[in-house]
């Protein structure tokens, strides 16, 4: 007897229920809490189908950093929140309905009429793992087979940050991000912000290190590091850096620059852009991943901090 179908059924119902509630919630703050719960539940779903790498990302991003980003936005938008009876127009609602129906039908077709055999590159991905000295196929895809995509993903993060920064008023350009925090004297928060980051930093580095052979990775590790940095800034233990700071901008670029340097070096030592030499692939992969983790952590932390709204001196 197996009870697993019951477990999956319950989990699926929960995910749909929370998603539905998040959509119909009247207050923005309540919807954001629903979204955080939704992120955690998706983590359970990914764990349920043994996609531990994705589950780690979902738990760190969906439940953690995106949740906090939305919480801040909701708190800030509270005074401008529209009255609950305001509804979008009929045309808009019908259009949204049509698009949702198209997506649902498309997904239903994919699920109900699967191609047999299902297209898969899993065997090809696993075949070359020993040559890369890696044990985790997901890391191999991200950092070797599709390395260019991973590099461009960092560029997208940077573009997003530039977008956020450009929202600040001109006179504060290069200044400190976010509004001035009032003095926080809540001892419980100070306690948490002093005790949690050391644990989180060890865990973030562990996620990066273990990703060679086990689920984990630069993005998951970087997200955990970012969360710990944001916590210290929220508690007022660390001031956010001025966005004009040269050192900060170097950190923001370090991951991408290392990637590009190693990529061009590939022409000389392995015969192609982003090719790794057969002799020491793992050393090069680590060389890329360490600055990339730092770049991800700093970019996410600054995305949550927001545009510059204060002068450097304030």
């Amino acid at each position, binding site marked *: 007897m197996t009870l697993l179908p019951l477990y999956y059924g319950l989990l699926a119902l929960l995910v749909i229920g929370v998603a539905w509630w998040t959509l119909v919630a009247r207050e923005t703050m309540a919807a954001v809490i629903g979204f955080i719960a939704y992120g955690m539940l998706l983590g359970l779903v990914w764990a349920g189908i043994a996609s*531990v790498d994705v589950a780690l990302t979902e738990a760190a991003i969906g439940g953690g950093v995106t949740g906090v980003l939305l919480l801040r936005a*909701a708190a800030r938008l509270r005074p401008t929140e529209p009255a609950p009876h305001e509804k979008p127009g009929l045309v808009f609602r019908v259009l949204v309905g049509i698009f949702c129906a198209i997506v649902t039908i498309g997904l239903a077709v994919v699920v109900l009429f699967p191609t047999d055999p299902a297209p898969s590159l899993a065997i090809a991905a696993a075949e070359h793992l020993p040559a890369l000295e890696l044990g985790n196929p997901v890391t191999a895809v991200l950092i070797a087979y599709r390395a260019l995509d991973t590099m461009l993903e960092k560029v997208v993060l940077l573009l997003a940050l530039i977008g956020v920064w450009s929202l600040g008023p001109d006179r504060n350009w290069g200044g400190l991000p976010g509004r001035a925090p009032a003095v926080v004297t809540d001892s419980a928060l100070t306690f948490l912000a002093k005790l949690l980051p050391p644990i989180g930093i060890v865990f973030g580095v562990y996620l990066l290190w273990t990703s060679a052979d086990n689920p984990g990775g630069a993005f998951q590790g970087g997200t955990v590091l970012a969360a710990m940095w944001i916590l210290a800034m929220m508690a007022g233990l660390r001031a956010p850096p001025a966005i004009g700071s040269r050192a900060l901008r170097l950190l923001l670029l370090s991951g991408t620059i290392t990637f590009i340097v190693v990529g061009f070096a590939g022409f000389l030592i392995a015969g192609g852009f982003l090719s790794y030499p057969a002799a020491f692939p793992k050393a090069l992969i680590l060389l890329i991943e360490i600055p990339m983790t730092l770049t991800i952590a700093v970019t996410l932390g600054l995305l949550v901090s927001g545009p510059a709204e204060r002068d450097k001196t304030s």
Partner: protein
Amino acid sequence: MTVFLTLAGIIILATVAAGLWRILRGPEDAERMMAAQLLGSGGVAVLLLSAVISGIPAIIDIALSIALLAAFASAAFVLEAFGTRGDEPADRP
């Protein structure tokens, strides 16, 4: 043993689902955040059970991330939702 652990997982998940009713009802955001916190703890428990059931120890790492980031999200919630940038209540004479 697997059947028993799965059953425990189902009971915890169902319990947490009932707790999510609080997210729906409120009445205040504090209650909603408590329900999300309960979902976090329940999720951690379910993940630990499934790590043993499925024999994939790496699932414990997901539980670690959720435990770590749920604390972070809850702290952010208290700060933002209540604007808790004031003084703490005098709880000692």
